[in-house]
């Protein structure tokens, strides 16, 4: 059976159920690299110039892990998933950059998604990807449709049932803890890309730490696409792919939907340098919800993150006690 390697990084967190369905339907076996560790990061960052951003270094570490463990590595290029809305350069150059810095990498399965080039181009790209596994067009079409449904279900489980991404991805949504919405419990909205929010190594187990303080964590995936779209439009036109994860979710949470917002970005991220600033400015202007921005990089230490988190939560709890009627 053909083995397809999937690096557990970047777009994995958004599209894995879709990819999994597509490739297994076509008879391939998937090899997903294990969760990020320090070793993953060190392996990746040894190959590239220092200025490369943390998520890309982590991504390359995952690819290195897959060397000799699969026949292909799947690295899609998502140039544009909405008309006139483009992705960051690092996503566009990912397959070529991987080839350049990891010469021992297995052959790369590439697919370029660019909706500006029309539907035919998209279909053609999907057929070309599927042709590595089967010559039958009908089979590829079926697999693609099933993949799309799987993706749809995955998103719906998160924003309808409020399931967290890792549980939704592994199909463990049945066993989520009872959602007790206690009014004294602080709700914290996280904004940022899923590959930061859901990679425990990159964000220093932020979600776990928040939950340990009995805070309710809300991530951008838990907000419905409709609400996100309205919220994104409030702060301006679309420019970046996945702008709704930062600007949209930020603008939505700022309408008093949560008690505090934490923006997670990595140092040197081009799109976030602008998008986080949009949210920060808006937060400063309307002063509805406290906003903290965490910039992560290779040298961020646990203790630093923890101190800032504690101070932020203390402030939110004090504010909450003040607004609650005396018991």
């Amino acid at each position: 059976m053909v083995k397809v390697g999937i690096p557990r990084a970047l777009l994995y967190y958004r599209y894995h159920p879709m990819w999994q369905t597509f490739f297994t339907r076509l008879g391939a076996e998937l090899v997903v690299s294990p969760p990020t560790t320090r070793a993953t990061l060190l392996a990746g960052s040894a190959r590239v110039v220092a200025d490369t951003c943390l998520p890309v270094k982590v991504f390359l570490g995952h690819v290195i892990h897959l060397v000799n463990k699969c026949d292909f590595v799947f690295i899609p290029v998502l140039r544009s998933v909405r008309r006139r809305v483009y992705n960051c350069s690092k996503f566009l150059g990912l397959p070529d950059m991987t080839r350049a810095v990891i010469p021992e990498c297995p052959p790369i399965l590439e697919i370029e998604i660019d909706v500006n080039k029309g539907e035919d181009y998209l279909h053609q790209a999907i057929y070309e990807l599927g042709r590595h596994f089967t010559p039958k067009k009908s089979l590829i079409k079926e697999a693609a449709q099933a993949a799309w449904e799987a993706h749809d279900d995955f998103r719906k489980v998160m924003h309808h049932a409020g399931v967290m991404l890792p549980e939704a991805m592994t199909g463990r949504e049945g066993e989520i803890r009872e959602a007790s919405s206690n009014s004294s419990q602080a709700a914290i909205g996280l904004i940022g890309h899923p590959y930061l929010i859901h990679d425990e190594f990159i964000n220093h187990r932020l979600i776990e730490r928040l939950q340990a303080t009995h805070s309710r964590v809300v991530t951008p995936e838990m907000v419905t696409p409709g609400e996100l779209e309205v919220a994104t439009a409030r702060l301006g036109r679309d420019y970046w792919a996945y702008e709704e994860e930062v600007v949209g979710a930020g603008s939505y949470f700022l309408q008093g939907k949560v008690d505090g917002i934490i923006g997670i970005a990595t140092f040197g991220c081009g799109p976030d340098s602008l998008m986080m600033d949009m949210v920060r400015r808006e937060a400063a202007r309307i002063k509805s919800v406290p906003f903290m921005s965490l910039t992560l990089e290779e040298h961020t230490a646990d203790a630093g993150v923890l101190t800032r988190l504690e101070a932020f939560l203390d402030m939110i709890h004090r504010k909450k006690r003040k607004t609650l009627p005396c018991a």
Partner: protein
Amino acid sequence: MRVGIPHLGNLYIPLKTLFRRLNVDYVVPPLNSRRTLSLGAKYSPEGLCIPFKLTMGNLIEAAELGADTLLMPGGYGICRLGYYVRIQEQVLRDLGHPATIVELGVSERKFLGFLEMVKKLSNNAPWTKIFAAFRFGLAKLNAIDRVERAVQKVRAVERDKGTANRLYARSLDALDEADDYRTLKKVEADYLAQLDAVPRNGRQPLIVGITGEFYVLLEPFSNLDLESELGKLGVEVHRTTFISEWTKFSLFFGFLGKSKKERIHQAAMPYLKRDIGGDGWESIGEKVLYARERYDGIIHLAPFTCMPEIVAQNIMPATREEIPVLTLLCDEQMGKPGMLTRLEAFVDLLERRRQKRDNKNNSGQAQSK
């Protein structure tokens, strides 16, 4: 209405001409200075690149001089640049400047968008007048670039260092003042002749190609006047990106300068298959071409945290075409002594490499005799 513009090298000179001819009320903010940079850095989000910070400084300084309509490039599908306007507008608003930014779509409407904007700014001047002004501005731009090209050559081999730069500064003033084609031609010819007559030191200069992100290539303030410094070290620089080229390319796209771009893209193809925004694709293509054309070395300029150039920088060492590359990252923390040390070391390396090659060629010839 008073129009203000950000700086990009000498681009303000032809723009001034255009505005003057169309009776547009305009201000050119002071040339980039320490103040521009500190203003820009102070009011910009910290993670942004130096082109944002400097243009931000320019816009603030223009607004201080009473400009209420500021021109800024923007658009889709290019790097962060397309998003600049959204933040810059907010910064100006938060600072209390009542200015609006007119976004110049360099990626889609191109020439038409620019002309429509000029028409609006000039209070509906007749098209013939706009075209005439535009043509003259373009002629001026081309003249400036030809003088600059000559200066790049003379700087490397002049006997008394600094002569070419002095002539260059004077030529810019004269070209700025020229108000008809005849004067323009005369001024250009005059300065080209003067540059030609500058006494030479008789050395054979090293030839270095300069590539990278267009803003830091074209705005000498942002790269600490790299080209002059290289000239002092006896290096002749070649740069494919000139302001006239960039303007033509970003305004006309398909009509002019495309075949040249295509050649660069073709050269990059084996290593990077697609446009990644900004000038990353071009940087790799130019590296390949400079190496094939046997330049002595390449200096790759990029703003700190520039997304496309980081990709290019990572791919460059994997290209088969061998040539020494020095990447210099430009930001507000960059200091001249640090840059000079790196340049001197790089030039030393290139000189030794050339000597080695010459020796090899000589001994090769001796043996064949």
